[in-house]
């Protein structure tokens, strides 16, 4: 048989399997992402059933998956939301970065992986998964809660921070000399800033070149522009993901709204492939070695996320139960953890980062949504009431 025939058979069987796994996950109120990645581990090199003919297709599909994930993220946010959030929650964003990136960096140094790996691991532990968390909030009926805007604005700032972090990272992992590296970083950050500024100011003009009412041409136009810019960005070491994110932000109004609807199914398909592919490229034999470190890292950085959320909510005047809800909701890491680890592994920084990031992400994304439900239990509510009473008694006695 031809390779193409085998490709059809393998990808077809894979997607069918993923669909069944996804259904199972959703039935139990879980995100399907961990299952996609586990499927990748099973079918990858060193797994139970290594795939042969379809790896080229899956590799391109994964690349497209990142681009689609990020352009959709950009489309979801309007420029005014980004600027508004930057002004109102900058402090929460800084805390978030310090509390969650530093443990990752320290971890890499303790493991003896060197400074570049430290920069990589800082990103791996820093960014929560907006996709997973938005879904958890929706499932738990918390979108109307008063702490929810705080959770969302932390996520927005992280995503925005990635527009600067990823170009820096891609410049650093290329491993140029210090001067060369500094120049590349300066170019990357400068161009991102300029594009971001233009997108916020003049995004409407870009939207005007598309016709929002013709689905076919809009789909091809927006996808084409996104892939083109992503490719060009990748070429100048700004990272394809950031290019796609910036295109998403620049598009606005009806064009953005309709494009979001058209791209959503494509994103679902290729994002799934992206997670599978990361599983494929990770050798399951490496996991036992990193399991304990990953568990420790997850325990530490999930706690620091809770602290981040707790402090941010406290500052916004949210009550005690709401502070815990904010912190616990922020725990799951996801797409960026994988994107960052993927970048590092492709550049050959430290081969163990892939299994570690995969295990770490699986732990947080599985346990995070379960732990987020703790605040809805009667045990937690009684605990909060007791704490409030103690505080009340204390305040009463002091007056």
């Amino acid at each position, binding site marked *: 048989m031809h390779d193409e025939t085998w490709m059809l058979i393998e990808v077809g069987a894979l997607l069918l399997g993923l669909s069944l796994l996804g259904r199972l996950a959703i039935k139990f109120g879980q995100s399907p992402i961990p299952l996609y990645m586990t499927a990748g581990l099973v079918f990858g090199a060193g797994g139970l059933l290594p795939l042969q003919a379809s790896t080229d297709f899956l590799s391109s599909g994964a690349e497209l998956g990142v681009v689609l994930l990020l352009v959709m993220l950009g489309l*979801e*946010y309007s420029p005014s*939301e*980004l600027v*508004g*959030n930057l002004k109102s929650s900058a402090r929460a964003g800084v805390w978030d970065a310090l509390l969650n990136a530093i443990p990752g960096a320290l971890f890499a140094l303790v493991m003896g992986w060197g400074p570049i790996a430290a920069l990589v691991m800082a990103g791996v532990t820093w960014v929560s998964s*907006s996709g997973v968390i*938005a879904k958890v909030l929706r499932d738990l*009926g*918390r*979108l*109307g*809660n*008063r*702490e*929810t*805007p705080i959770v*969302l*604005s932390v*996520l*927005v700032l992280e995503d925005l921070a990635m527009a600067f972090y990823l170009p820096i990272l891609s410049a650093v992992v290329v491993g140029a000399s210090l001067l060369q590296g500094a120049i590349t970083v300066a170019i990357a950050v400068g161009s991102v800033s300029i594009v971001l500024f233009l997108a916020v100011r003049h995004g409407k003009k870009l939207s005007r070149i598309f016709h929002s009412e013709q689905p076919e041409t809009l789909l091809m136009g927006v996808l084409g522009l996104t892939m083109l810019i992503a490719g060009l960005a990748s070429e100048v070491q700004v990272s394809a993901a950031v290019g796609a994110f910036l295109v998403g932000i620049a598009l606005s109004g009806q064009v953005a*709204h309709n494009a979001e609807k058209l791209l959503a199914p494509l994103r679902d398909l290729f994002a799934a492939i992206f997670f599978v592919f990361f599983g494929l490229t990770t050798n399951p034999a490496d996991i036992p070695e990193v399991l304990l470190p990953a568990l420790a890292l997850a325990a530490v950085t999930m706690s620091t996320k809770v602290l981040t959320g707790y402090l941010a909510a406290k500052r916004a005047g*949210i*009550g005690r*139960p*709401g502070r815990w*809800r904010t912190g616990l909701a922020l725990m799951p890491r996801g797409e960026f953890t994988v994107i960052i680890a993927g970048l590092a592994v492709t550049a050959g920084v430290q081969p163990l980062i892939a299994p570690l990031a995969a295990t770490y992400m699986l732990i947080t994304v599985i346990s995070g949504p379960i732990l987020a439900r703790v605040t809805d239990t009667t045990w937690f*509510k009684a605990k*909060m*009431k007791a704490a409030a009473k103690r505080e009340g008694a204390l305040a009463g006695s002091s007056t």
Partner: protein
Amino acid sequence: MGVRIEKIDLPGMGVRHDVVTAAGQHIGVLSYRNGTREVALYDPEDPDASLASVALTAAEAAAFSDLLGHAALLSQLSGLGGGTIGLFTEQLVLPADSRYLDRPLGDTEARTKTGTSIVAILRGKEVIPSPTPSEILRMDDLIVAVGTREGLDKLDKLLAHSQV
């Protein structure tokens, strides 16, 4: 009296408006990008947590806001000529506490005050086309009027004017 309404962004999803009632209760109205609305009520013991929420489609939300806006007035507005010429017909129920209850239609001076024309009154199964000024208005009368948007709004207010 003004009502305090706070607007809070929900990045990537939409906006939430918080209404604080005179009694200190919070009501959240969530407007998602896709047009659906959600009304949320809060837990008195934990004012940050929404206890229950009702999801509304765009059409339901519009109907609901109409209900709230005209406390005692049920009405249905439809545009003539596809709404392009600025003329509308409205069917409105005479409020139970209206000052014009059991009084002749002429007393309302609707045409003079609002510029609208009352073209018919529906009373149970009975239809009174082109009612004269001497026609007495009864409870649960359905009044059919034609006019501009502003005129009909004025008519709503005029008829809703209570006895005291």
